């Protein structure tokens, strides 16, 4: 069932739905009294959710013996990059108004901005090399090594969120726990390969 072409299309539409919702809220003048802040938070929320979803593919497919889930990983990753790019562009263009002076001073002085930038920059090479051609060119092993950068993205994105909130840390903690579990699973497999659950 997971092999059907249709569920790839379905997932594509599901991943696009938040963006459609954002456009709809803009159309219906429903972007809250502070639209730029709303767009920033909305795109950031979806970026981190999709990063977590991407990180979850490997553990879930192994634990639930659903090898075909791998078919969806690239799309989830690319949508994470899509929302992260919107998030970044909103901050850069709408919030800061391309004011390079302010942007550069944010980069050097604001640690939550630095964490966010690290998370985003680590996604760029992954998005570029996400094609079959690039996998061939790099070779599976090197490609896989490169794509471990997504672990950095996951951790940096959580830190970015945690450093940003004022006092209510429920959501950063939730994403932080998920990323920690997903990375710990990988760590456990790497350290104790024989005790790991049977890989299908």
């Amino acid at each position: 069932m997971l092999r059907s072409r249709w569920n790839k299309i379905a997932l594509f539409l599901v991943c696009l739905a938040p963006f459609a919702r954002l456009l709809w809220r803009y159309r219906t003048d429903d972007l809250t009294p502070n639209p730029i802040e709303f767009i920033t938070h909305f795109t950031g929320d979806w970026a981190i959710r999709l990063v977590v979803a991407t990180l979850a593919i490997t553990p879930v497919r192994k634990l639930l013996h659903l090898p075909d889930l791998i078919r969806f990983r690239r799309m989830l990753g690319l949508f994470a990059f899509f929302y992260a790019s919107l998030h970044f562009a909103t901050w850069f263009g709408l919030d800061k108004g391309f004011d390079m002076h302010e942007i550069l001073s944010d980069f050097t002085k604001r640690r939550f901005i630095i964490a966010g930038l690290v998370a985003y920059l680590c996604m760029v090479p992954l998005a570029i090399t996400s094609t079959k051609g690039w996998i061939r060119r790099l070779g599976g092993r090197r490609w896989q090594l490169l794509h471990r950068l997504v672990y950095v993205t996951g951790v940096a994105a959580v830190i970015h969120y945690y450093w940003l909130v004022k006092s209510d840390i429920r959501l950063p903690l939730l994403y932080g726990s998920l990323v920690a579990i997903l990375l710990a699973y990988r760590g456990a497999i790497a350290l104790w390969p024989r005790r790991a659950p049977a890989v299908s």
Partner: protein
Amino acid sequence: MLIKKSADIGYSEVTPKSLYFNRRSFLAGIPAAFLGARELLSPSRARAGTKLPDLAKSPFSTSEKESTYNDVTHYNNFYEFGTSKEQPAEYAKNFKTTPWTVSVDGEVAKPRKYSLDDLMRVAPLEERIYRHRCVEGWSIVVPWAGYSLSALLKQVEPTPKAKFVAFQTYYDLGQMPQARYAGIELPYVEGLRIDEAMHPLTMLTLGMYGETLPPQDGAPVRLTVPWKYGFKSAKSLVKIRLVEKQPPSTWNITNAHEYGFYSNVNPAVDHPRWSQATERRLGELRRRPTLPFNGYADQVASLYTGMDLKKFY
């Protein structure tokens, strides 16, 4: 005390919208569309408050454009009713504010408990249109209704030992179930130095937009200190206590490194995590420069003569 009208930024200094929007071709059309539509939509919204009797005009009012009622009532920081901006409008909807008493005591000759009706009669209610700058970098312009807090404080006759004023706000998990997620110690407490509290700009606020306060904006009575970051203007007051020592304040307890006792609006002193040089006025897209003491420097800067405002942030 000399009270001058502050010098507001003239519209001539603002970059024309057309120039500004041209830089954003990738999202062209957004601004004009929502700026226009919002104005049309907001007045029709039902208001929660009761109309107040005629309010005297105040020389302290700014001539800047008022924020829309809808923005001021749907973009709130009131952590007892949820930590997002939209939640207070929803979770405070059924906030019960009658009966209400505010006790005023401590270092005073005549401590007293005030009912809401008493508070309405302490001094004639005035409408004062103040700028309100949040520490997070957004701002609004609100027509508050109330009077100088000094009128109330004078009634209870502070003793010479009264050097500070401590404020405490309403707290009840029954009415405020969201408060358990606030991540700050509650009840919310704030404080002012006595000269700040007695300054005529400091308001005891009972209404806005000609009506009683809606719950999410601090019903039924709140503080308004226009030259300080918004969190100093505590909402839903229940206790006012005159004290000898500097009282604790909630955000300072939460994170002393980021939020000081004074918290005067100051574009030259950054918040550790973001710049305070600019702010976004709700309803506008472009950030505007933040003014020292939120534009009230002429009236209040003298309160801080000789103080290092970087140290006493």
